[in-house]
C-alpha cells in the first residue's frame, strides 16, 4: 500500500525540539495569569476578599465577576458557563477570581491570599437523581430544570416488536456504565495574549477551534470578534479536550485588564483535572430482540449522560451516541431515548468518540449477551447482522457504499489471533487465564445535518515559486497539516519540500471549522484540492502569457515550472511568482460536506448535528491475560481493522488507530477519576493512570483500501473509530477468560478476582 505521508512534514521539527507550541510562547517579561477555583461542588459565594492579593507586590490585577464586561457567558451552543462566578458555584473547578502577576511565584502567592467564603448547597451528583422533581437545581429558575436535553430516535415499531415477541425469539437486556475520562493531552491548556495599542486582542492558544473561539470570547466579554486574532500552533494533543472553553476567555479578560503586556496562562496538570471538561459518564439501558437464528429484530432503551453543570456539547454528544446505539448492524425496529442531566460533577464535553464510546460499549455488550444465549460465536453473530450498503441504520439513514463492517470482521476473524484463540487459551501458563474478544465498531464523520461542515482553504504561490498553504484546522497531532502538504504537493505535481504550511491564524486563514468529528482531513482536504485545481489552472494561464501560448490547456505544471510540451520551452514558477501581484498569487476555495438527502423523521429535538451521512467501520480484537492471584488484567493482543475509504497513508491510519485504541484500553483497564460527590481523587498522573509503554501490546492494524467517491483522494475520516474497540472487546475477552460479565468500565482487579472465586482459585 503506498504511503504518501512518511515521514510527516512536522516530524523532524518536533523531534528536534524546534517546533513551537503555544506552551513555548513565553516572551521575556510576560505576565502570568491564573485562576482561583471554587473547590466545592455546589454553593453560594458569600464573601470574596481579594484585598490581600491585590496589595501584594508584583500583582498587576485581581479580577472578579464584577470586572467582566459582556455577558460573562461562555459555551458553544448553550451559553451557560460563567467566565468568573458571581454568586453560584456549580462545580469544584468553577473560576472565582483571576489574578495577573509579574511572576509565577507572585501569582501563586496572590492566589493563595484570596479569601473565598462559600455557603455549601446540597449538590446533585447522580444524573438519575438530578432529573427527579425535588432535586437541587443546578441552574435555579431554568425552564426544564436539570434536564439539559432530551431526544428520541426511532424507526419502525420497536414497542410492537417487543410486545409481539414469542418463544421463538430471544431477548437480552442490560444496564451499562462508562465513566468520566480525562483527555490527558500532554500539553496542558495554555495561551498567550496581548491587547495591542491598536485595540487588537492578539492571542496564541492551544485550541482546536480558533475561529469559533473568537466568537465565544467576543460574546462573553462584549468584544468585537473581528478585533480578536487567534493563532493555533501545533497542539500537544487535544482529543476533543481543547474544542471548547479552557483558557480562552480568562486569558482574554486578563489581557483586557493589563493592556499592552504579554500575558501567559498555563494550567497545571492539577488544574487541568479540576477545571477541564471530561468525557461524559453515561448509563445506557438497552434491550435487544432477536430470532433464534440470530437475526436482530428490535432494539430499545435509554441513554443518560451526566453533563456536569454546563452544557458544552452535551446535547450533540448525546445525539451522536443515540445515532450509533444500533451499532453497525441491521435492526428493523429501534427506539432510543436520551437525556442529559445537569449535575455538580465535572463538566462533560467533547472527547474523541463523542457519545459513541458510551453507546458502543452497551450495544456490543448486548451482542455478546445474545451470542451467549444463542450459543453462538460472537464474531459470527455480528457478521450475520452486519449493516450493508443500501440498508438502513438504526435511525433510518441509508448506509452508503463503503459500509464494510463484514469485510472488517472477516479480516480480523481470519487472523491467527482469532482462529488460534482456543489453543492459545489452553496454553495459558500457571496462575494465568486467557481470553479473546472481537467486536464491531463504527464512527460517523462530520458535524451532521443542520450545521454546515464547511472549510475554506487558501493556497499561495510565493515569489520564490514555491507554495504556501494556509492550514485553517488545527493539527493537534493527528497529522492533518502534513497530510495537507502531501495532498497539495501531489495535486500540484511538486516535491513536498516545495509546499510550506502556515498553521491556523484567524487573521490570514479563511475559516474552516474545528479540528474534530473525524472531519478535518476530509473537509479541509476537499477544499484544498479545489484550491489546488484553481491554482493549477491559474498557473497554466499565467504561464501561457510568458510562453506566448494561446492554448494553455496544452501546458503542463511540472516541478518548479510550467512547460509547453509542443515547443519544449518552460517558465519557472519563480518567474511567474515574481510576475504576479499578491492577490493573483492566491487561490481560495471551499467545500461543504454533503448531508443526508432525505433525513428520517426522527430525532426532531436535534437541531444541529443529526443525522450523519458518512461513517467509517471496523472490527477490533483484544486478547487478555488475567493474573489469578491478583486479578490484574493485561492486554496482550490488540488488532484493529478499518474501512475508511482510500488509505492515503498507511502510517497515518496506523497512527490514529493505535493511539485511539490505546485511549480505549485506558478507559477499559486503568482510567478512573475517582469521583465522589462531585470531588475527584485524580489530580495528577499518579492518581489517574494512563497506559505506559509497558501496559500495551504492539497494536496491529489492518486497513482495508476502499474508496469514498466524495472524499479527497477517496478518503474518509478515521481519527476516532479506533477508540471504540478495546472497551467492549476487553469485556468480551474477560468473559472468555474468567466468566466475569463486565457492565461498567474501567474493570477493577478486585471484581476480576471475585469473578474467579477469590485469590486462590
Amino acid at each position, binding site marked *: 500500500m503506498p504511503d504518501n505521508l*512518511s*515521514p*510527516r512534514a*512536522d*516530524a*523532524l*521539527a*518536533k*523531534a*528536534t*525540539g*524546534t*517546533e*513551537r*507550541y503555544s*506552551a*513555548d510562547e*513565553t516572551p*521575556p517579561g510576560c505576565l502570568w495569569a491564573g485562576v482561583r477555583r471554587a473547590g466545592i461542588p455546589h454553593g453560594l459565594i458569600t464573601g470574596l476578599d481579594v484585598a490581600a492579593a491585590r496589595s501584594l507586590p508584583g500583582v498587576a490585577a485581581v479580577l472578579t465577576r464584577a470586572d467582566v464586561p459582556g455577558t460573562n457567558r461562555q459555551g458553544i451552543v448553550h451559553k451557560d458557563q460563567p467566565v468568573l462566578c458571581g454568586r453560584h458555584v456549580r462545580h469544584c473547578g468553577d473560576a472565582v477570581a483571576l489574578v495577573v502577576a509579574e511572576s509565577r*511565584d507572585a501569582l501563586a502567592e496572590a492566589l493563595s491570599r484570596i479569601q473565598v467564603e462559600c455557603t455549601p448547597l446540597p449538590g446533585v451528583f447522580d444524573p438519575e437523581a438530578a432529573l427527579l422533581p425535588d432535586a437541587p437545581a443546578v441552574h435555579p429558575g431554568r425552564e426544564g430544570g436539570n434536564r439539559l436535553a432530551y431526544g428520541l430516535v426511532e424507526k419502525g415499531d420497536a414497542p410492537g416488536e417487543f410486545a409481539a415477541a414469542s418463544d421463538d425469539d430471544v431477548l437480552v437486556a442490560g444496564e451499562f456504565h462508562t465513566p468520566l475520562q480525562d*483527555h*490527558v*493531552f*500532554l*500539553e*496542558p491548556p495554555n495561551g498567550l495574549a496581548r491587547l495591542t495599542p491598536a485595540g487588537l486582542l492578539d492571542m496564541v492558544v492551544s485550541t482546536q477551534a480558533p475561529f469559533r473561539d473568537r466568537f465565544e470570547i467576543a460574546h462573553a466579554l462584549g468584544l468585537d470578534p473581528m478585533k480578536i486574532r487567534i493563532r493555533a500552533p*501545533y*497542539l*500537544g*494533543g*487535544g*482529543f476533543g479536550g481543547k474544542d471548547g472553553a479552557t483558557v480562552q476567555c480568562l486569558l482574554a479578560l486578563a489581557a483586557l485588564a493589563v493592556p499592552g503586556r504579554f500575558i501567559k496562562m*498555563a494550567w*497545571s*496538570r492539577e488544574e487541568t483535572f479540576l477545571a477541564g471538561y471530561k468525557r461524559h459518564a453515561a448509563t445506557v439501558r438497552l434491550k435487544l430482540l432477536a430470532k433464534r437464528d440470530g437475526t436482530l429484530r428490535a432494539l430499545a432503551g435509554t441513554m443518560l449522560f451526566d453533563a456536569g453543570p454546563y452544557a458544552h456539547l452535551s446535547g450533540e454528544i448525546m445525539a451522536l451516541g443515540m445515532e450509533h446505539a444500533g451499532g453497525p448492524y441491521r435492526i428493523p425496529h429501534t427506539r432510543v431515548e436520551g437525556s442529559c442531566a445537569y449535575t455538580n460533577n465535572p463538566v462533560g464535553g467533547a472527547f474523541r468518540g463523542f457519545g459513541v464510546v458510551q453507546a458502543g460499549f452497551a450495544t456490543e455488550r448486548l451482542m455478546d449477551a445474545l451470542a451467549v444465549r444463542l450459543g453462538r460465536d460472537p464474531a459470527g453473530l455480528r457478521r450475520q447482522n452486519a449493516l450493508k450498503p443500501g440498508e438502513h441504520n438504526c435511525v433510518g439513514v441509508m448506509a452508503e457504499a463503503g459500509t464494510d463492517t463484514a469485510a472488517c470482521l472477516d479480516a480480523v476473524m481470519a487472523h491467527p489471533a482469532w482462529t488460534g484463540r482456543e489453543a492459545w487459551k489452553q496454553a495459558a501458563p500457571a496462575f494465568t487465564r486467557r481470553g479473546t474478544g472481537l467486536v464491531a465498531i463504527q464512527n460517523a464523520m462530520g458535524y451532521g445535518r443542520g450545521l454546515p461542515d464547511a472549510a475554506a482553504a487558501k493556497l499561495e504561490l510565493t515569489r520564490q515559486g514555491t507554495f504556501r498553504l494556509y492550514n485553517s484546522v488545527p493539527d*493537534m*497531532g*493527528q*497529522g492533518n497539516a502534513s497530510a495537507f502538504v502531501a495532498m497539495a504537493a501531489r495535486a500540484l505535481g511538486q516535491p513536498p519540500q516545495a509546499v510550506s504550511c502556515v498553521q491556523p491564524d484567524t487573521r490570514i486563514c479563511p475559516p474552516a471549522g474545528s479540528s474534530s468529528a473525524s472531519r478535518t482531513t476530509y473537509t479541509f482536504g476537499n477544499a484544498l484540492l479545489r484550491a489546488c485545481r484553481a491554482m493549477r489552472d491559474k498557473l497554466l494561464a499565467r504561464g501561457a502569457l510568458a510562453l506566448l501560448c494561446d492554448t494553455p490547456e496544452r501546458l503542463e505544471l511540472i516541478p518548479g515550472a510550467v512547460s509547453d510540451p509542443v515547443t519544449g520551452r518552460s517558465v519557472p514558477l519563480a518567474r511567474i511568482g515574481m510576475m504576479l501581484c499578491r492577490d493573483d498569487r492566491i487561490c481560495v476555495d471551499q467545500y461543504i460536506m454533503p448531508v443526508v438527502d432525505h433525513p428520517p423523521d426522527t430525532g426532531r429535538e436535534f437541531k444541529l448535528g443529526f443525522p450523519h451521512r458518512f461513517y467509517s467501520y471496523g472490527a477490533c480484537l483484544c486478547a487478555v491475560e488475567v493474573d489469578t492471584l491478583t486479578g490484574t488484567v493485561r492486554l496482550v493482543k490488540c488488532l484493529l481493522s478499518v474501512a475508511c475509504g482510500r488509505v492515503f497513508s498507511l*502510517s*497515518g491510519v*496506523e*497512527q490514529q488507530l*493505535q*493511539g485511539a*485504541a*490505546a*485511549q480505549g484500553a485506558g478507559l477499559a483497564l486503568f482510567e478512573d477519576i475517582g469521583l465522589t460527590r462531585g470531588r475527584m481523587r485524580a489530580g*495528577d*498522573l*499518579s492518581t489517574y493512570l*494512563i*497506559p*505506559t*509503554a*509497558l501496559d*500495551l501490546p*504492539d*497494536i496491529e492494524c489492518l486497513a482495508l483500501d476502499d474508496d469514498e467517491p466524495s472524499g479527497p483522494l477517496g478518503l474518509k475520516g478515521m481519527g476516532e473509530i479506533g477508540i471504540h474497540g478495546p472497551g467492549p472487546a476487553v469485556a468480551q475477552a474477560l468473559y472468555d477468560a474468567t466468566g466475569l460479565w463486565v457492565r461498567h468500565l474501567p474493570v477493577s482487579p478486585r471484581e476480576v478476582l471475585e469473578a474467579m472465586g477469590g485469590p486462590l482459585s
Partner: protein
Amino acid sequence: MSERMELSFTLNGAPVCLTTEPGRRALDLLREEFGLTAAKEGCGLGECGACSVLVDGELKLSCLLLAAQLAGRSVVTAEGLGTPDAPHPIQSAFADCGAVQCGYCTPGMTLATSALLAQNPDPDRDAARVALSGNLCRCTGYVKIVDAVLAAGAALRGEKP
C-alpha cells in the same frame, strides 16, 4: 528565592555561565534563560517525562531538578542531539518510523532512547518498552515509538535499514 548564584555548566556541548536563583527549576532555566523549549512541562511532578534531559548522560526530569544541581554537569537537551537540517539518527528514526504525532513527548522520548542505547546498543522491544516506561505518550500507543528505538539502534550500529 531572592539569593542568586553564579552557575556554570555545559549545555549541549558548550560551556555556559549565568547568575540565577539556585532554587529555580532546571526546566524553567532551560526554557526561559536559554530559549531551549524542547523540554516540555506536562505535569511538573516528575510523572510524564516530557521534560526529560540528559545530565552527564543519565536521563533526568528537569522539572524536579533545581538550577544549582546542574553546576559542573553536562546537560543535553533534544536541541543538542541534532537539528532539523542535521538530525541525530534517533531523531531521524522517530520521524521515519511515524513515531511523532503531537510531538510534545517526542524530545523526551528521544533522550530516553539515547540513554537506553548508550547502555544497550541492541535492545529488543521489551527492553525498549521498559526504558520508555517513564515517558508518557497519549497519541501513539507506543508501537511506532518502539519501532523507532529499534531502528535508531540499528542505525547507530551502522546497519543499513
